[in-house]
């Protein structure tokens, strides 16, 4: 089955570059739809701003979203896509956790840094789609604090960029009813926060690397499971589901 891809990116050169990355990554790309702002994406997906995007007859399986867009933040789209059965990937120039953490909480399945080399991006993209989401030390540390204390995350609060503010309301709510991490998951996160790679962690913990990977996936799930549940409640309240 051919993979349908949606790329949201305002810089045409970067868009072209990402198209090449996608085509290189998958042999069965069915079609790439390109959009340069939120408005056109909403037109393509058929929903209004603030609403929920529901899958059409032939849904997209992969959606790449830039965070900085001329008419808003990519986080808005991620929130609207919370019910959409696609792999959502954030493509950004920002590598700091202040930007990436809210994106993950809004339901992103992974992130790509746009300045990485072509081969690196291809490899990372394949990994994410296969279910090996990346987790930087800074984000792992953030997650540890988040799960241990249920603190509202600092990244969600500063008004220093437009991106995070959109997600802030969701983020603060998430924190109150987070799920707890298993001891193994906290151990994995602790190693990740110190910069260990998955292979090294597997060696240190005496487990297989794909077990470590499973832990990471489970952490990812716990990270936004409550935000999704909350989104569903919100949607049903508004009569959208």
């Amino acid at each position: 089955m051919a993979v349908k891809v949606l790329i949201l990116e305002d810089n045409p050169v970067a868009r072209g570059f990402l198209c090449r990355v996608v085509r290189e990554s998958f042999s069965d790309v069915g079609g790439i739809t390109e959009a340069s702002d939120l408005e056109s994406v909403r037109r393509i997906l058929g929903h209004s701003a603030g609403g929920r995007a529901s899958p059409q007859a032939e849904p997209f399986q992969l959606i790449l979203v830039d965070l900085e867009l001329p008419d808003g933040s990519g986080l808005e789209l991620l929130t609207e896509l919370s019910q959409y059965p696609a792999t959502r990937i954030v493509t950004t120039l920002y590598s700091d956790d202040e930007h990436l953490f809210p994106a993950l909480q809004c339901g992103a399945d992974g992130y790509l840094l746009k300045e990485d080399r072509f081969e690196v991006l291809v490899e990372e993209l394949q990994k994410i789609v296969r279910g090996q989401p990346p987790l930087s030390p800074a984000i792992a540390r953030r997650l540890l604090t988040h799960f241990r204390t249920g603190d509202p995350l600092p990244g969600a609060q500063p008004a220093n960029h437009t991106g995070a503010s959109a997600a802030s309301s969701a983020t603060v709510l998430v924190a109150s009813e987070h799920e707890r991490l298993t001891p193994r998951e906290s151990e994995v996160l602790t190693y990740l926060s110190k910069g260990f790679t998955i292979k090294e962690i597997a060696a240190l913990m005496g487990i297989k690397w794909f077990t470590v990977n499973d832990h990471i996936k489970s952490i990812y799930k716990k990270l936004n499971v409550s935000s999704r549940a909350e989104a569903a409640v919100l949607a049903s309240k508004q009569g959208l589901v």
Partner: protein
Amino acid sequence: MAGHLIASEADAANCDPPADLQHPWPSLEAVLQRPLSLPRWVGWRLKAMVAIVVMALAGVLLMAHWLASQPRFPFSLSVTPAGEVRLDTADYPPLRPLEGRLLKSIVIEHGGSAEGSPAIEAPIPPLALFPSGRWLLDEEGLRRFVAGHVELSNALDQWSPDGVTVRLKLQGHPDEPILIAPRGWAGITPMYWVLATLSLVVASMGAMVLLSNADWRYGGFALLSMTQAGNLLLMALESNLGLFTPTWLLSLDTALRALFDLLGAAGLVHIALLNSTPARHWGFKAAAAWTCALGLWTLHGGLPAAQAWWLLQLGCAGLAMCAIALTLSEQRRLPHPLNLLMFRVLLIGSLTWALLTLAVWLTRDRPDLNLEISTWGVAGWQTFVTSMVLIAPYFSRTRQVQREFMLLAASGTVAASLDLLFIAVFSMGQLASMAISLMLSMGLYLSFRRWLLTQLPRPDSLSMEQVFQQIYRIARQIELQPESACPAMSRLMRDLFDPLDVLIAEGALNQVTLEQDGGLMLVPVPSLASMAQTRRTVLVIKHARRGQHLFTRDDCALAQRIVEQLQRALSFDQAVEQGRSEERLRIAQDLHDDIGARLLTLMYQAPTPEIEEYIRHTIQDLKTLTRGLAAHTHCLTQAAGEWKRDISHRLSVARCELDWQVKLEREIGLNVVQWSALTRILRELVSNTISHAQARRVQVTLSLQEGTLRLTVCDDGVGTAPETWSHGLGLGGVRKRVKQLGGNVRWSVREPQGVCCEVDIPNFAGACPEDQVDQASGHASGHASH
């Protein structure tokens, strides 16, 4: 990865605020063992207070009205050393010649002399001049005292408000007719007004204390003040009635004064039991004291006068001794300045009581001295005790007033005793002795006051300068570590007040307040505005000067000023810092967004891989720069984690293995300059290896030992003779940044192949001073940044 700093999960996220490290302080209510400030003077309390004061005032005025209608002599009488009654000072000029004559008796002719009805002669025994039977200690004397009054009142039973003319039988002088008229309002002596006002004030004070805090302890105090008020009121009446005291009042007065004295002493025991903290089984003990007082009173009514008097005096003294003993044992159990104060007051009161008793007993054969002592001595003692009672609720007010009062009371006592001495020893006149003694004691008071005020050790052990330094140091510290506010504040308070104990409790308080009558001071701990939603804490400071003193209003005001200053310093610094970081963020964001996007476009369109790589490098530098601008401080372990990930990512793309080792003797915070310099040094060295060395394996070690930060990057590549390398942009940058950090860098050739670069930075200090990092690590492995 053996050498890697492996830490427990607890400190993995250690640069974040240690939210779970805040100790669960007890709440303020739990520390004080009672709810915070009761609502005072609301509703019925205020109404009851006003009603009590109005009623008491009405009572005093009614009594004055009754006094005004009572008869009086137009002269005053005194007793000579020989035990005879002497006419002392006359009100009217025609009577002046009589001054100094001895008075035998008064002759009253009923219905006027014209009808020749028999005249009644009422002798005036010297004992009748005593104000009250309370201080007459022998049976015979008391009998004569009562008989004198009875005869006089029998003789005067025809007396009408229009006045009656009587004849005075004087020794060595013809009889002198005088008119005994009602006293009238103008005739009420100032003594009555002074004593009655004092009584009114004491009674109101007792009622106020009881109404504002309705509990047993204040009940005891209220009763004590009521007994004092009663005694004073009786004295006020006696001072005006004199010889004309009605017989019903005579017995009532004697009985009431005995009762008041005993109840007052029992009240002291009651207060001693509850003074600072309730003693064990205080209920039983207090009940025993009250029963004892009432029992003694009942007993004393049935005894002969002398024994009854001694029973009374000793009973009061015994109860007071009980109170003293209880206070001392309480002080030993739980030191509290109130106990100390109580002990002193009780001791002075009991000693003067003993002296008074002794003086009355010793002078029992000298009616003149005995009269002086039982009139003025008792009045002086009573006034002294009353003023003690009056000032008791205000002991925690300004220390200055307290000191002045002590001096005044002391000089008053000196004046009274000098007065008695002069009269007794030099047989001086009343006025002359009083004038001299007053003058002497005033002189004494003034000279002592000066000496005391200059000699007393200054209460502030810290100079103002030191306090200011401390305040600003604490402000800095709180900014870096908000959780250090409590320990820092309590240290300052310890330095200032030298208290017995400082507790930390949880609770919100707007200003510094005194609790337990100055035994405790509550100081709110200033916090950052951003911490407003977190738990507020309050310092509960126990007993100033190692438990020897109460906190005064001055202390309270000083602490309040310190808290305000600190809060102001905090908010000012915070505003400055906020402005600074907002500006930095804005610059960083502009740089990142605009230039980053342009560079990215340029990179995608780069004609050659070299240029593409160069631009990628530039983008990464730009990101490092903007992140450095946006963040304040980084932790070394966290930064190391990110470096490791970055490098292993890059090396894995270059198919190269990474051996990463970190050994840190302690955690430190990196400031922006240090973080960005180290980030770039590492990146540059690794880039160099990737692009030139064709290495299979790169070894990076980072260590912090004895204050020296050492970073080595070694490879097994093809590089040789590093001294011949052209130090282009990359390696020149490395040198520049190492120099910026105050270190040195050198390259060497490894065996069998490869190049090693060593960076040494001696005296590598973190972003925050070491002592603060150490203090923070007392909490956990936390430190000053997030």
